[in-house]
């Protein structure tokens, strides 16, 4: 593969790759918020170490700003992640139909089970959001939060298994005969760990924005703390999350490098060659911006909005670079001529203009909905 991804490829292939990667990034961002957010919630529920400073005594971490925001927003974020996931799920079927379908079928029930698991996790999120949960024992609350986080980890495991299986066409007959879907445990573990740790910066960035918004909504904390204490708590929480994001991102980069070492030689040379080198550079430089921004955020007492904007921008660039590198790995292991052929044929099917028109229309209507809500006319 001597072409730069994706602009060096033939028009239709490059076009579908761009559409796929961009829609995937939106899905990954929301998915990351859900996965890291549920892990965060499970952590603070299991270890609800209190912090001094409340007018009512010590405030357990489950009542801290981040936990409150997560309980409130995770159901919607999951809904958004699933909805956003429909688009890349559609374009993957144009780009890699044979690979994706075969991996799906080979996993069979083990793949299909992600649906009931997600349904269960969805309802549990609503239960965790409800007021009734505060009346339940700590054991049940711990069980629930672990169950939710475990469900999302399980779905992540299934996706990773599916993806790795789809890359390895030569192993499909063996996988079919033996039922063994995991060909390389180290590769699976490293890839999964890379993604899981990589979800925290995304959650951290969105959480930082939400915490900034929370500062101005005094009605959301009146029940637990005085204004001053609560503001301090929000700032502490913001710094704590920045720290966790920073540590997780560095871990993710190290794990990604380890995963890189497990890849076949041909894939590695494509990643470090014309196809991928620019994306590696983009990934590292955007990570650099994020690291700098997160360090400043951690040191700052008030949090810098301009740095938060920079970190947010860098996050999306980083996710795009990571998704592009992911596709270079996949394209190296796929039958490239078949992918070129199928995308060429797909590009001849009509409907793109219609899609663009309705995308603009619906984006406008979505903006209109948000504007209506922001206006908040009194009833």
């Amino acid at each position: 593969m001597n072409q730069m991804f994706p602009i060096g490829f033939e028009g239709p292939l490059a076009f579908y790759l761009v559409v796929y990667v961009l829609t995937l990034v939106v899905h990954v961002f929301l998915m990351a918020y859900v996965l890291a957010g549920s892990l965060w919630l499970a952590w603070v529920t299991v270890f609800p170490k209190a912090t001094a400073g409340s007018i009512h005594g010590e405030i357990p971490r489950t009542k801290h700003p981040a936990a409150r925001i997560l309980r409130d927003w995770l159901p919607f974020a999951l809904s958004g992640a699933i909805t956003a996931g429909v688009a890349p799920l559609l374009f993957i079927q144009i780009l890699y139909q044979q690979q994706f379908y075969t991996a799906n079928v080979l996993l069979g029930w083990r793949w299909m089970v992600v649906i009931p698991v997600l349904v269960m996790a969805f309802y549990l999120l609503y239960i965790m959001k409800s007021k009734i949960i505060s009346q339940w024992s700590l054991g049940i609350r711990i069980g629930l939060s672990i169950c939710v986080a475990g469900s999302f980890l399980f779905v992540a495991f299934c996706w990773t298994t599916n993806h790795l299986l789809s890359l390895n066409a030569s192993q499909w007959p063996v996988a079919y005969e033996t039922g063994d879907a995991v060909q390389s445990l180290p590769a699976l573990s490293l890839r999964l760990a890379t993604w899981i740790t990589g979800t925290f910066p995304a959650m951290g960035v969105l959480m930082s924005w939400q915490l900034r918004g929370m500062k101005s909504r005094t009605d959301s904390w009146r029940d637990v703390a005085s204004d001053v204490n609560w503001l301090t708590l929000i700032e502490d929480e913001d710094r704590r999350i920045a720290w966790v994001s920073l540590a997780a991102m560095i871990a993710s980069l190290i794990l990604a490098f380890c995963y890189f070492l497990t890849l076949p030689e041909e894939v590695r040379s494509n990643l470090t060659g014309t196809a991928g080198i620019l994306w590696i550079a983009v990934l590292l430089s955007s990570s650099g911006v994020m690291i700098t921004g997160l360090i400043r955020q951690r040191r700052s007492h008030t949090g810098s909005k301009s740095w938060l904007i920079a970190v947010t921008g860098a996050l999306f660039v980083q996710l795009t670079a990571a998704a592009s590198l992911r596709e270079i790995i996949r394209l190296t292991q796929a039958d490239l001529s078949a992918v070129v052929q199928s995308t060429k044929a797909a590009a001849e099917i009509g409907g793109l203009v219609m899609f663009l028109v309705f995308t603009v229309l619906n984006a406008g209507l979505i903006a209109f909905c948000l504007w209506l809500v922001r206006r908040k006319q009194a009833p």
Partner: protein
Amino acid sequence: MNNFYPVNDYGPLMPGLVMAGVAIVHVFLAQFAVGGGLLLCYFQWLAMTGRSETARIFVNGYFRILVLISFVLGALTGVGIWFTSIQVSAPTIGQMVFNFHWVWATEWTFFCLEVVAGYCFYRYHTQLSDRTNLTLLILYAFAAWMSLFWINGILSWQLTPGDWLASRSLIDGFLNPGFWPSLLFRTIVCMTLASLIGCIVVNVIPSLDRTQRQELINRAAHLMIPMLAMPVLGVWYLLTMPDDSRGWVLGGSPAMMLFFMISVGASLAIGSYALIGLWMQKLYINGATATLLLFMAFGATAGGEFVREGSRKPYTIRHVMYSNGIRPDEVADLRIRGCVTDDPYPVVHEKDLPNDTVTVGAKVFRKQCAVCHTIDGSNAVVHLTASWDEDQMRMNIAKLQQTKPFMPPFAGTAQELESLVQYILWVESGRPSSWAQGMNPETVSQISRWLDEAGTEPAEARSIR
């Protein structure tokens, strides 16, 4: 490895049943979501114009149910249907996605609008003016109905591709002959389901007294009035169906006719109750009766979906792809080349099979039969062929499209057909550890003659000629 997908064995369940189960649940929930949006708009309007203050209480309670059921189960079973379709017939869903990916992508933009408008209402409706709330609900209902609009074009195309077959134009395929009757019919079904669930919700809202409940129930029943148009739309839809498909529904296939009658009967009962009882006589309906009617509506939906799926036989996409994922224009080639010659996947538990002939037969079964049949579970080939003697079995399979016109033609060599027969007989005989190897050349020649006599075209094409 192109064109070969592994096929899973679901034990006694045939993959089609798995698909039907997920599809019916999803269709039911998705239609509730569409109708729910319309019902909420109506009730919000009633509340804000002062026609019914009680309607405001209902809107808040009903939307919570809608979010919890539709946003969660509806959305996820929608993804589940995609996954299930891949399990059942990867070539079919692949072809549908290929032809209509921009339609699906367009539908996705409406999903996004639906989720945002829905959540904005769900989260902020108590802080918003009536007018803003109605606007959000209208946008939600519009987006939900548009998702029906788009998917309806793809689903109706499977049975009635119409001019698309010649033109390959997206518009011809999307606005196919079955599009409008199907869309209008489904819209009425959506409103009916929403209305029935509305009646249940009214009965469980604790703050309402009996008079208020009765008022809301009678208002909700207004959405069932369009059921009056169902017979006309049903006939219109039947008229757009291909002759042979309509024939299965109207008596040609006892199972299909039975499900059709269940669907018609249940719809008739619900419609009569709604029109005479709730609308004309303003009767009260309690939660138990509303739930019973909803179950009947589920039965009607299930029956209708079964008929819609079944009436496409022997195709999954008419004139484009047979139920087993083989294309009509591939059959002649597969008769020469063989349908499992390039199959890279071994038979699971291959060592348990007595010889190569039976193994090839198992592969042929997997490739051509397994999507609709099991070997000895539900809709089992062993049971369906139990009364045939060996030669009859060979001839009936060789002339499959004539034996049963809703079956596709056999798409393999004479040797593969004989292997399939041997596999069926081996299972029928209790899977003995040893089984006669080899084939009688005369038998193979006879099968070849039968295959030639039957031709490679489906029964419908031959009958038209």
